[in-house]
């Protein structure tokens, strides 16, 4: 006989969407149908970053999902945030990526580690989409090996002076404000880096080359270049030497958002495959009735379910204030690999049509690959997980 507590736990383990999540999902579907779907192919072809859409997402409250309403944010938790990213990713993963990067990284860093003054100054603009945020950790020669970063910040009177370059930065050109991690100490010292807020228009700070990418093409990715870029002392986030540690905490949450992005892609690829395989007839039968296709669908549905449970579990733990270092890495690792597998299988089910741009699955396929790389590759996720296991 189950007790009431067991029933509540069972219900919570199902991660059934609550009323708010259902409304958020519907809101995004309605918005996406009107403002994203008709244009996504053109944006993808042109590699056009639709900044106007992000302003609209700001009006909907999607640019500050986790930001409390005292800073003009929406004040929701990670479960609602995951729901929002999943729905956006189903419509256009690249829009989902930009929204997730804005929320989790730049906005998330200031929200988690900024001073009250910094929060009051930046969060209302970021949460409403008035400003787009960028976050710079990666450099041309240091991805996960952040301890060897070359960008340096030197104290000079009432200022910090930054020199160096960051790359693969989401919104590196269009971002109105960036959180930048720079060296303030010794090479290889995890306490040798600090985080700074740099506004666009600051002399010595500019966006660099825009990357021409395989997928996620309407999400802007570029260099950020700092040449004797002088910023006020108060733009340091937290204490000197905390930048790397802060970043790792930001990434713990960020990884949940990439898991959600992966989940949205996987769901989109699966939904399209299920529908197509019922409608496409060969030898006078729907192709879903052939075991070769039916088993693919079974594999896809199973992996999708596992990715969903892992992602919502990490989100639920984060909402409860628990440490999600391992769970977010596991969710990101599994869901991102699943999104690549499912979108690959989707193309196989669609056959020749899947290889064309007339159907959505080739875009899922190209977009999905980012998920196993961005915010830490699958290999880095395994490193995070195994280090925790072997502690």
């Amino acid at each position, binding site marked *: 006989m189950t007790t009431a507590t067991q029933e509540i736990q069972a219900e919570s383990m199902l991660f059934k969407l609550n*009323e708010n999540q259902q*409304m958020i999902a519907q809101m995004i579907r309605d918005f996406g149908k009107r403002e994203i779907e008709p244009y996504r192919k053109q944006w993808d072809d042109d590699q056009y970053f639709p900044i106007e859409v992000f302003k609209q997402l700001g009006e*909907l409250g999607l640019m500050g*999902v986790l930001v409390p*309403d005292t800073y003009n944010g929406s004040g929701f938790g990670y479960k609602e945030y995951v729901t929002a990213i999943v729905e956006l990713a189903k419509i256009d993963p690249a829009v989902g990526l930009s929204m997730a990067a804005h929320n989790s990284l730049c906005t998330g860093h200031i929200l988690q580690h900024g001073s009250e003054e910094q929060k009051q100054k930046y969060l209302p603009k970021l949460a409403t989409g008035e400003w787009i945020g960028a976050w710079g950790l990666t450099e041309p020669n240091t991805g996960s090996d952040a301890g060897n970063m070359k960008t340096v910040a030197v104290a000079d009177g009432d200022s910090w002076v930054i020199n160096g370059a960051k790359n693969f930065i989401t919104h590196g050109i269009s971002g109105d404000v960036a959180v930048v991690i720079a060296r303030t100490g010794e090479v290889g010292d995890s306490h040798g880096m600090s985080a700074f807020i740099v506004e666009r228009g600051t002399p010595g700070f500019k966006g660099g080359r825009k990357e021409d990418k395989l997928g996620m093409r309407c999400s802007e990715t570029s260099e950020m270049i700092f040449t004797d870029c002088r910023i006020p002392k108060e733009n340091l986030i937290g204490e000197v030497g905390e930048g790397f540690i802060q970043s790792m905490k930001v990434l713990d949450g960020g990884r949940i958002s990439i898991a959600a992005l992966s989940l949205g892609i996987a769901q989109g690829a699966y939904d399209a495959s299920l529908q197509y395989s019922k409608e496409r007839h060969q030898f006078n039968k729907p192709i879903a009735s052939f075991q070769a296709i039916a088993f693919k669908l079974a594999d896809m549905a199973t992996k999708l379910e596992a990715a969903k449970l892992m992602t919502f579990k990490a989100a639920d733990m984060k909402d409860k204030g628990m440490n999600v270092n391992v769970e977010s890495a596991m969710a990101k690792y599994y869901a991102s690999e699943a999104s690549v597998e499912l979108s690959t299988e989707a193309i196989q089910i669609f056959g020749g049509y899947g290889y064309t741009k007339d159907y959505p699955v080739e875009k899922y396929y190209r977009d999905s690959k980012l998920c196993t790389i961005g915010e830490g590759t699958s290999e880095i996720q395994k490193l995070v997980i195994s280090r925790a296991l072997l502690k």
Partner: protein
Amino acid sequence: MNILVCITHVPDTTSRISFTDNNTKFDTSGVQFIIGPYDDYALARAVELKEANGGEVTVLNVGPADTEPTIRKALAIGADKAIRVNAEPVDSFYVAQQIAAVIKNGNYDLILMGRESIDFNGGMVHGMVGELLNLPAFSPVMKLEIEGDTAKMSREIEGGKEFIEAKLPFIAGCQEPIAEWKIPNMRGIMSARKKPLEVIEPTDSVKNTEVSSYELPPAKGDVKMISKDNVEELVKLLKEEAKVL
């Protein structure tokens, strides 16, 4: 200005329709329910009028507890409070009687609803409520402006448009382009749960109809492609097969 917006809780337009209980009940399993699209226009216009003129928007639904997510969505879109009459909306007249009872107990300057629901598409409730309360009722209203205690409306009639002026209060069945659908934002969704949703029991009302059975329309036949040069064949098929000529 106090505006009452009556909303229906209907299957999404993309739902697959099937029936249970020997074809006497609609099968709701796996069906996504939404605010009736015409009601959505009425709600959007009501919120616009409130934003322009001040006042309050109340949404009303006649339905069991499972319609509450739909009601909450209306609150997220911008209605201030909601009333749910705890009853199955068995037919148009029954629903009209329930709505009329709520209007009698309220103090509404304007009552808006969709021109029709999209489940049974009767399109009768606005007229019936007007008759029950001796209030004017107009439908389908495509434009609605309020100046003081007077409304200017336009409505589509066969072969043209009709322009109407009416004193408040009255009932309007709305359709596009009276307003553009509003998509709720995150703040609206967050606040929707805090807005009052009053549940009231139905008044004793007459139920005049009973459904004996439902049936689906015949499945659409296959498409026949006819060469553009073969008009004779086209005419023959339209006459003999499709029987439309």
